[in-house]
Every structure is written in C-alpha cells, then in structure tokens.
C-alpha cells in the first residue's frame, strides 16, 4: 500500500472505525439467525465506536490536512463539528435505548442507521468538494429517511418518512443540478477553486449565479430554511422522539458547517443582490418559525417550528460571516450557536421522550400540567432549557444569540438583527408556555412520568446543568470555537 493512501485513510479513520464497530451488532444478529442481540450490548458497541471516533478525531486535532487529492479536509471546523455530531449521536442513542418507539426487535439496525447517518454528516463536515458534499448529504439523508419510518406502529411516521423522502429527493436533485452548473462555469468542484473563481463570475455569469443559488437551496432544505421549511413540523412530529432529537440537531451542525465552507469566499462581499435575498430568507425563517410555533400545542411541533426559527438566527450569523468583512467572527458565532442549540434541543427532546410511555402517544403542552409537582428536578431542568432557548441570560442560549448578533452588528447589519430581536421576543411567549403549565396549573395525572429511563433523565438534567455552567463560563467554549475557526482552511 502506498504511504499516501495510508495517510489518507488515517484522516477518515475516526469515521471508519465508528462505521465498522456499528456493524458488529448487526453482524451478530445475522449470524445468530436474525435474533436480536440484547439492546444494552448494542448500545455499548455504539458507545465504543463513538469513543474510538472521538479519540481518533482528537489525535487529528490541529492538523489541518487534506486527503484524497484535496477532496476531504480535516481542519478546525471538521474537528469541532465531528465532536458535536458524535456527542449528539451518543445522546440520541441514549434516548433511543428503552424508548417505546425504538426499543424492540430492530435496535441493532437502528443503531447502524443512526451511526451511518452520523458518518454521512462527518463526510459532509470534511468535504472540501461539492461532490463529496453531495455524498455526505445523501448518506446522511438516506439513513434518516429509514430512521424516520422505523417507528413501527405509528402511521404518522410512515407519512413523515415518505414526505421527507420525496421532498428531500427533490432538494438533492436541485443541489446536484446546482453543482453541475457550478462545475460548468468554474471547471472545478473544489471549494477553494470555486471561491477563487467566484469574484469574477458572480456578477457577470448568470449560469454560475443560478448554480450557486441552487446549491444554497439544496443545503437550505436540510436546515429548514424558509421557504423550504414546510416538511420540518410533519417530519419532526412523525419521527420517533430520539430520531427527531438527532435530526433536528446533528443535521444542522453538519449542513451549516458546509454552508460556512461555501460562503468562505470574498466574492459574496461584492454580491449585494444575493445578500438581499439571503437577508430576506433569514428574516422570514425567523419570523415564520416563531409565529407558527406560537400556535402549536404539540410539543414536538412546537420544537420543530422553534428549530426553524433557530435556523434563522444561525443564518444571521452565516450572513454576517459570508457577506461581511470578518468571516472568522461570524463563523465563530455560527459554530458556537450550533453547540448551544444542540444542547438545549437534545435536553428538551429528552423530556418529551420521558413522557412517551407508549408508542402512539402525542405529547401536548397540556400534558406538562403540574410536572413541577411530581418531578421538581426535571421541571426545573426543562425550565432552564426553555429559558435558554428563549435567550435569557446567563444561559448558554443567551450567549449564542449574543455572539451571533454581535457578529452581525459588527458588519452593520442592524436591520437583520432587529428582526432577530423581534423573533426572540415572540419566542418568549411559546417557550414560557411549558413553564406556565409545569408550575402554574394544578397538578394533573398526565404529567406523572411512568418510565424510569435513567439515561434519559440524566441527559435532561446534564444538559440543563451544562447550559447554566457553560453559560457562566462561555468564554472557554468561545475560545475553543475560535481556535477551531482559526484553524479553518
């Protein structure tokens, strides 16, 4: 084997190790005449794989290397993003183990699919090339389509999976079409070469512009950017809660990192029209997400719309990074926000998972009535998460917004930030609703949690504690993110 190939393989070793280890439970199952191995052991294999992946990624940290003739890179963003994706996968697996909708005969497959999807995300994070980006997105999405459908008895999940699959395929097609246009005009699919050619092309070449817009749309679909957000509530509601937790966080981490690579070009600074459109899209994403969330009773739908709104905030940071002078500060804001958003969202979904003791249950905000009476610690944790999602200091969510807004204000994008603020004010209303029901209504029987699920409780409480502690010491996280962005290509 030639040494170059070995080096290249070393770069993707974390992901490869994870993938191979996730195959073990499935293999055991096949050898064992399709008898499901104990779910606990399956979970342990998943954790071993993730531990390997995290350890190997840590050994690659700060290398800033490319592999496979520049198609794949390992820089600060990929490392930081990989940590996030692995962490999210670990928490989602914790929620899935024992959960009513995912426990059962197919946990080995479930684990394999979720881990493969995570591998797809890591490919997306490491992609330095539009083709590899496409590969990553497809690997990630195909696994997700199945995961959404895997909740067996639920009709909604089939509908959701189908919807997601059909619309997702359209989005992939658009993305691919855009890639073709860009390749046609630039003659390359490498991000650096596109970035180098873009300043000349962006204001003169219509084909390039169309291609660029299509790529933005294709990626925007994955993060539920307005007007491509309509699938999110249905899919988030239909999927099993652990899957929803996984896709509402990890997909965003990977896709926004890819967005950052696409926007890391000086060309955008001289493209006021794209800026204008992106600004409108960001504003509408924020407003639509927040206003629609106000009207939701179903907690998963509420969080789905809130995740649309949060995509809008991240878009604000992305626009500040791409169209402003100071890419690094904007990118730092984006990556920091992704971290805080993932933590808050995973915790919130953990509580929903706890309330689902049967497979076809719908958790409405009314189900939280008197939760504080039955489970004071869990209620307090959810309150912290909700306040953090609303951006009340000194939680991590506040600092996420603070850094994003400060990046946008540095670029004089007051208009954009103003709408972000309006959105935040609206969001306070629906984030406070669960708190109102938990603390301020008479205790109902609905909210008595019937399942033990210690690991899910742990995930909820740990995320709340982390949000408070890391909020108070946000500068350490900020420093880590800044270092990873400095280390970006």
């Amino acid at each position, binding site marked *: 084997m030639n040494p170059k190939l070995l080096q290249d393989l070393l770069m993707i070793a974390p992901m490869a190790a994870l993938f191979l280890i996730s195959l073990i439970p499935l293999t055991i199952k096949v050898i064992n005449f399709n008898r499901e191995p104990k779910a606990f052991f399956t979970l342990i294999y998943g954790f071993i794989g993730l531990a390997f992946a995290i350890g190997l990624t840590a050994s690659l940290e700060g290398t800033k290397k490319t592999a496979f003739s520049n198609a794949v890179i390992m820089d600060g963003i990929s490392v930081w993003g990989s940590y996030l994706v692995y962490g999210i996968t670990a928490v989602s697996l914790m929620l899935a183990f024992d959960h009513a909708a995912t426990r059962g005969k197919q946990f080995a497959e479930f684990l394999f699919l979720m881990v493969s999807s995570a591998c797809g995300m890591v490919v997306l994070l490491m992609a330095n090339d539009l083709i590899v980006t496409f590969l990553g997105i497809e690997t990630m999405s195909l696994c997700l389509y199945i995961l959404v459908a895997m909740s067996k008895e639920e009709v909604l999940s089939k509908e959701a999976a189908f919807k997601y699959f059909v619309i997702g395929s359209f989005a992939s097609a658009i993305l691919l079409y855009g890639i073709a246009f860009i390749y046609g005009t630039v003659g390359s699919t490498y991000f650096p070469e596109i970035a180098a050619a873009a300043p000349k092309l962006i204001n003169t070449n219509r084909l390039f512009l169309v291609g660029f817009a299509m790529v933005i749309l294709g990626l925007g679909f994955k993060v539920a950017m307005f007007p491509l957000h309509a699938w999110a509530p249905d899919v988030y509601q239909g999927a099993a809660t652990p899957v929803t937790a996984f896709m509402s966080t990890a997909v965003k981490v990977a896709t926004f990192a890819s967005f950052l690579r696409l926007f890391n070009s000086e060309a955008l600074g001289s493209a006021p029209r794209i800026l204008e459109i992106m600004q409108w899209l960001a504003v509408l994403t924020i407003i639509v997400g927040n206003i629609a969330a106000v009207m939701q009773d179903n907690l998963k739908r509420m969080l789905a719309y809130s995740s649309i709104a949060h995509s809008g905030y991240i878009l604000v940071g992305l626009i500040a990074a791409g169209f402003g002078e100071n890419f690094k500060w904007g990118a730092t804001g984006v990556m920091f926000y992704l971290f805080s958003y993932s933590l808050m969202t995973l915790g919130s979904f953990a509580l929903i998972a706890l309330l689902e003791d049967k497979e076809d249950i719908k958790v409405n905000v009314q189900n939280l009535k008197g939760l504080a009476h039955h489970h004071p610690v869990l209620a307090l944790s959810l309150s912290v998460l909700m306040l953090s999602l609303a951006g009340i200091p000194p939680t991590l969510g506040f600092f996420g917004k*603070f850094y994003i*807004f400060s990046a946008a*204000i*540095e670029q004089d994008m007051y208009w954009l*930030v103003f709408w972000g603020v309006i959105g935040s004010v609206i969001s*306070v209303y629906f984030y406070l609703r669960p708190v109102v029901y938990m*603390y301020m209504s008479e205790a109902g029987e609905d909210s008595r949690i019937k399942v033990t699920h210690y690991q899910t409780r742990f995930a909820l409480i740990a995320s709340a504690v982390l949000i408070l502690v890391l909020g108070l010491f946000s*500068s350490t996280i900020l420093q880590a993110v800044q270092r990873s962005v400095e280390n970006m290509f």
Partner: protein
Amino acid sequence: MLISLLVFLPILFALIVLCLPVKMVRPIALVLGTFEFILSLGLLTAFDKSTAALQFVEKIPWVPQLGINYFVGIDGLSLWLVLLTTFLTPVIILASQESVQKRIAGFHAALFVLQTAMLGSFVAMDAVLFYTFFELSLVPMYFMIGIWGGERRIYATVKFFIYTMAGSLLMLLAIIYLMYASKEVGDGQMSASLLDLYQLRLPFLAGQLINPQTLLFFAFSLAFAIKVPMFPFHTWLPDAHVEAPTPGSVILAGVMLKMGTYGFLRFVIPLFPEAAEYWSWLFLLVGVVGIVYGALVAMVQPDMKKLVAYSSVSHMGYVIIGLFAFNAYGVSGSLYQMLNHGISTGALFLLVGMIYERTHSREIAKYGGLAKALPIFTILFFIVTLSSIAVPMTNGFVGEFFILLGTFMASKALAGFAVTGVVLGAVYMLWMFKRVFFGEAGALVKDHHHPLIDLNLREICVMLPMIILIFWMGLFPNTFLNYSKASIDHFVKNKDNYFLTIAEKKPTDLNAQVTSVLKILEAKK
C-alpha cells in the same frame, strides 16, 4: 470581596432554603435575610463619603475576547439602592407568612435569586454584566407572580415578562454597538466596561432621529421606560401588581421599578448627554403626564391594590422629571424619591396585603369604618398615607420638594403641572382613606361571622422598621443624602462629559489595622 459576597450569598441562601424541611424554611430564611442586611451595613461603615469615585471595586475577566468583565463597584448613586434591596428582603420574608402558603421553600428560593439579580444590577459596572442581572431578575419575578399570584396571574406574568424583555433586547443591541464603538477609545480593545463607554463621544445631530446617539439613546430609554414604567408603557404594571402576591408587589414596587430609574441615571444620561439634553423636554413632558394621569386613574380605582399600583406610576413620574431637570436638586430629589417610593409604596402594599389576608377583598366599596375595628392598623395606614402624599416631616416631602425645586429651575410651566400631582395625590389617597376607615361600617367590617382582628406582633414588627424609616428619612434627610452628595455633584457638574474613576484603596483595610495593632503592642513591650 464584600460586594461579591453580598451579591452571591443569596444564591447560596436559595440553595440552603431548598434543602430545608418545610417547617424550618421561614425562620432560617429570615435569619439569612437579616444576616445579608447586616452584612450590607458594612458597606456604610466602609464607604468614603467624600469621593465620587467607584468604591469596593472588583474586576475579573469574564469573556475576555469581547472585553466583558465581571466588574462591580459602588458609588453614591447605587449605595442606597443596594441597602434598600437588602433591607426590604427580610421585611418581605417576615411579611410573607400569611400570604404565601404553598411551595414555601420555592418562594424563598425565588426571592433570594431575585435579590441576587437586583443587587447585581445595582453594582454592575459592565454593560453586559448589568444586562445579565437585569434580565435574570425577570425569571424569579415571573415565577413569583405566576405561582403565588391571584386569579389572572398567568396573563399578568406573561405580559410582564414579554413587555420587559421586548424593551431590553433593543438595549442589548445598543450595548453591542457601544462595545464595538469602544474600540475607538482607550487601548483599541473592545470593552463593555462602563468607565470606557463613558468616554465615548458618539456623533449627535440635533433634531434628527437617524443618528447613532439618538437611536442608542432611545434604545436604552425604551428598556428603562418600560421598567420604570413611564406613561404610556405602564400597562403591565397594574396587572402585575394586582395579581402578584403581597411580597411580590412589595419587591416589584420597592426595588424592581428602581432598576429602570437607576438605568436612566447610570446609563442613559451619562452615556448620551447631548441626546438626553436635547430630548429632555420629551421626558419631562411624559413624566408630568404620567404624574397627572397616574393620579387621575388612581382616583377612580375601586380596588385598593390597583390604586396603589397607579399611584406608583404617578410617583415614578416625579423621579423621571427630577432626573431630566439635570440639576443637583432634581437629581438628589430623584434619588431620594426612589428610596421613598420603595419604603412608602412597599409599606402600602404590605398594609393592603394585611387587610386582604383578613377579608379576602380589596374592594374599597366593601369597607368603611375600619378605624373603629382596627385601630393599630388605621394608625399605621395613616402614617404611610401621609408619607405617600408627601406631608412635611415624612420622607415623601423631602424627595418631592427637591424634585419640584429642581423642575422649577428647569421649567416653570412643567413644575406647575407637576405640583398638581401633589394635590391629586392627596385627593386619591385621602379619599380612599376616608372611604375605607371612616363612615359607616361596610359589608366586610360589620360581618359578625368573621370579626376582624387587629395587627398581631409579627405584623407590627413588619411595619415598624418602615415607619421608623419614614420619619427618619423625613426628619434627617442628610444622614442619607450625605452619602450620595459627592456622586450627585460630580454627576451634575460633569453631565456633558461624565467620567468615573476607581477609588484608590484606603489604607484602613484589615492588614493595615492588624499591623498598626501589632506596632502598638510592640511599643508597649
């Protein structure tokens, strides 16, 4: 260390209270609250009256990347507000015994967290740190109204939260803008420290809205105007007050509203002097409108608590016009009136709460002839009423007199209108007093199935410190004003070019004392 201790001890108290068995909560909380108050008296003894500089300063980097520090300090402007907070907390704990019956530990924990937030916003000298505490104060108050409040508590508390949050988010944007602007002064680093922000000279165009200083001025003003609350942003206040439990009302009126006026004093006027001067007419006008409007609306309220709530709107109008008169009389009057309002309106809410606990009604029409039934209550209520309508010898007189004097020097016409507020204040308070305490016994008073019982020892103990303060502040205002005089003079003199320095540490700290004692001992040998 003293300030940090004061600010963060309540958090520890909150945790302690949560771990206690229910029976122990009230006495222990009272002890802890009193301990905090006694500790805060340490500030008075160590405070140097002669300087306008910041004292007890502590500065630790918080988010060094953006120049945000944990930066706290006290000067003459904030000293008394800190003490007001620590003073009212034990009073509230003692007063809450009847009105708070469920989730007692949670209530006291919320109260202590609120105390941290309020103290933090008064001592914070870093804009982001201030914002953090300012917003944090919403959360415990939100729970307080929402859990222990009245019928429409959820509507009231959500309105309170969203209203205040809406105002303060624009302030956050303004703070971020100022932080970027601060690169121009000092060492070229971003800074959120107020001392650096004071040095900014922001471009200002008189008569135009779209220029940095004016926009920032209004962004900050909106946040504080909602908090104060100034007319026409006051609509959350009556709802919040009426629905809040008595202790919540006391802390809301007593301290939280002052965070708004303190914000004007600490941020708006020093940071944006030209805009503040140019737009002062607006604030004087709105302040006077608030005084008269609040008084007129208070007059027709059938509900005692709502009446007191609207009287708050009226009283806070005085504070605003005093501040925007920009002279030493006005500003010191305003500062004094903030304390007065904390004491007298707080006391009024306590008294209304006490009668409500007996009859479960606050409707004025149902009372009458209370004076015969409850003599002690009547006397106390009368004293507080006098303080609220600013009768000489009570604290209210000193504050309103200074404010009106200051306003008179700034604008004679507006001072004339403001004076009508004093008269109207007397009208609504005395009229209410007459209807409740004199005349024929009302439905609730002559109800023989539920005979009314006069105040017990605990309730008298709650009121006594308030009454003492009413007279002390009315008769010897200089005990209080002396501490803030240097700061206020500095504030007025350097209004267009405000700056603050950090006081040098006095040699009389503990080490020096110990060494001096050692020297004396050695000499004796």
